């Protein structure tokens, strides 16, 4: 049966080019790295506490870090071997986190705890999902078990599976859709079960027609799962934009998708959930697109979490040009890395290495008030005025321009003819507003 829904067009957005040259490269599994570094914080929320000490022997899938805080996800060893160090490392954003460094023994022995979870009801399913260590694999890294338990009183009627993959270069989700479509459908059904959602839409951008056709052919027997083709336009995969495109619902300012009855999960996340419920193997490996002008042989690679970036690039033939910028994630929202010793994380979906020409940004010049940032903003903000106020140090003024609603997609900076650091100044404004709020809070107590 052929079904269609009306796809709403979200406001603004840009076409940053496709660059998905790795799309047809089947995922290859990378051999064991020489060491893994597994940070205790690979999610939004409270960091885990290491459960192992230097010298301990660990096994594949063994829990090596956990937290008793509500918003957290445990971390597991991706190798069998010996813990060589438990020490703080510094993330590219300057944050210091504890990390467990393990030297693999090459045996890849499974830990005894790895067994298909015994799930009888919603509660046990949620508990198993938490134990799996899964976080939102779209890039944000929010603990999935928390997202699947909306606050009491909120009901979810629509589940959205995000296969938009709107960032240029990245094709790891596309590979997941082509290589594991049955797990994506199965995981979708499981999440529908957990959330009692009556309807699920799998949204995929129309530049991935093969994935749309394949997934569609697999849901012909179910009336409540629909694969929907979305226009390729960045940021189509932004949560609020995607919800609007597929349901016409707008997530109110400061609220969550569950406030409009929607839950969004990434294709890779639901695929993992289905696989985990079958095998019990926690999140220890990740599909990663390795691409960029400095990479000799771009590939889609299945990497063990904790693998140093340098070893992933070596596996892809090393660098064919001097790398000047290394990005974890896409070029629009990814994080530039400061060292090749940084490890691959749970939510890493791409590693890009750009040469000098692609890494340099044009010099900032004066704002000519052309309004292109205003037209491009998918959140209807006025980036030029936020920037103006940040430059002048008037941070409280930026609140009037709804700076906290910014999703930091980067469309404004991308289109700015003066190359102004628009979204970058939004981040400064948000941080300063948090400080101001903290000071006010402190004054009261």
């Amino acid at each position, binding site marked *: 049966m052929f079904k269609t829904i009306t796809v709403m067009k979200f*406001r603004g957005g*840009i076409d*940053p*080019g496709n660059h998905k040259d790795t799309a047809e490269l089947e995922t290859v599994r990378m051999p064991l790295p020489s060491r893994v570094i597994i940070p205790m914080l690979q999610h939004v929320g409270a960091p885990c506490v290491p459960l192992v000490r230097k010298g301990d022997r660990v096994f594949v899938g063994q829990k090596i870090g956990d937290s008793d805080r509500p918003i957290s996800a445990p971390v597991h060893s991706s190798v069998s071997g010996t813990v060589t160090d438990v020490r703080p490392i510094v993330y*590219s954003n300057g944050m210091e986190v504890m990390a467990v460094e393990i030297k693999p023994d090459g045996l890849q022995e499974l830990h005894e705890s790895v067994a298909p979870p015994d799930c009888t009801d919603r509660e046990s399913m949620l508990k198993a999902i938490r134990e799996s260590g899964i976080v939102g694999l779209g890039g944000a890294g929010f603990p999935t078990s928390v997202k699947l338990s909306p606050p009491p009183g*909120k009901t979810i009627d629509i589940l959205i599976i995000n296969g938009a993959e709107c960032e*240029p270069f990245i094709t790891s989700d596309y590979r997941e859709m082509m290589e594991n479509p049955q797990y994506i459908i199965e995981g979708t059904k499981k999440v529908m079960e957990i959330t009692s959602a009556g309807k699920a839409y799998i949204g995929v951008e129309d530049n991935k027609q093969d994935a749309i056709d394949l997934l569609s052919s697999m849901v012909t027997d179910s009336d409540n799962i629909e694969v929907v083709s979305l226009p390729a336009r960045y940021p189509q995969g932004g949560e*609020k934009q995607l919800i609007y495109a597929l349901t016409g619902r*707008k*997530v*109110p*300012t400061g*609220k969550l998708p569950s*406030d*409009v009855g929607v839950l969004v999960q990434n294709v890779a996340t639901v695929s993992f959930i289905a696989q985990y419920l079958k095998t019990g193997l926690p999140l220890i490996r990740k599909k990663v697109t390795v691409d960029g002008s400095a990479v000799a042989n771009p590939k889609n690679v299945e990497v063990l979490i904790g693998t140093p970036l340098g070893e992933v690039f070596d596996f892809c033939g090393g*660098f064919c040009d*001097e*790398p*000047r*910028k*290394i*990005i974890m*994630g896409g*070029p*629009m929202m*990814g994080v*530039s*890395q*400061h060292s*090749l010793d940084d490890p691959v994380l749970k939510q890493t979906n791409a590693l*890009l290495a*750009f040469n000098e020409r*692609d890494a*340099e940004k*044009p010099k900032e*010049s*004066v*704002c*000519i*008030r052309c*309004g*292109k940032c*205003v*037209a491009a903003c998918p*959140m*209807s*903000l*006025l980036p030029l*005025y936020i920037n103006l106020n940040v430059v002048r140090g008037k941070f409280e003024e930026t609140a009037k321009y*709804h700076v906290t*609603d910014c999703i*930091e997609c980067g469309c404004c*900076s*991308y*289109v*700015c*003819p003066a*190359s102004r650091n628009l*979204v*970058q100044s939004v981040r400064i404004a948000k941080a300063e507003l948090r400080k101001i709020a903290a000071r006010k809070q402190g004054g009261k107590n």
Partner: protein
Amino acid sequence: MKISLLAGSSPHIKGGENTQKIMRDVIIALLPAAVSSVIYFKVQAAMLILVTVVSCVAAEYAWCKITKKENAITDLSAVVTGLLLAFNLPPSLPPWMAAIGGAFAVIIVKQLFGGLGHNFVNPALAARAFMVASWPSQMTSWQEPGWDAVSTATPLEIMKNGSEAAEQLPKLWDMITGNIGGCIGETSALALLIGAVYLVVRKVITLELPLTFIGTVGLMTWMLGGSEGLFTGNFAYHIFAGGLILGAFFMATDYTTSPVTFKGRIIMGIGCGFLTSIIRLYGGYPEGVSYSILLMNLVVPVIDRYMIPKSFGGGVAANE
């Protein structure tokens, strides 16, 4: 391999737009009107265009040198100002006056307020206003197109003089092609519209401001501009006469001095159209486009201030 990595906040890629490319597009869009002005007003027009452009660029260069600022002439904005100012001058104007006007536009109106992006009124229009005040007769003496420099009146002046003069009005087609008296760049609506289409296609400008501006003038002059009561006005003449097409597409849309939001631009367009019609129909001057734009320039900061849009999801209620 020893590597040194650049760190930086995303996004890590950028589109190909830059200020110079935008200004170059505006210059290209002004070329058809420049060519038609030379066809109709010959050497005089060519001379004025050359003098104002050179004067604007030289003033910009000199100012940057003297104040030790980075040389700004490569952004091409001074060329745009020069062209627009030349388009607003009568063909018989002595070139030295045009040169002073160009320097005034760049130094007094633009650079003294901080340069590109910081001036609060349109430099070319403010310079024109300054020149009308300084040399009122030279700035308002018109001639017929051609080599002979026969003095004439503009269509708006003829209309201002009342219905008995109406038979002197040029044919509408001559007004569209530009075969009439007036400022050198404003007479050919056709050439200007070709340029305007280019600007829209290249996404340099959007249509909401020019269309509301022209629409408001059309509506108001049709309603109130006739001598035989309401809705008898000659709106087609009002649309194609004078500097309306030039002003609406090329001057009111100046980035620095127009609002950045869709709604703001509509307010500016209606405001410009309203003021233009009032000046043309009831004011002392036959033409009101440049003063209406200048007046609306002044309220642009206020418009932007009060037109902050609701963010996506703002004012939407959650399910309870």
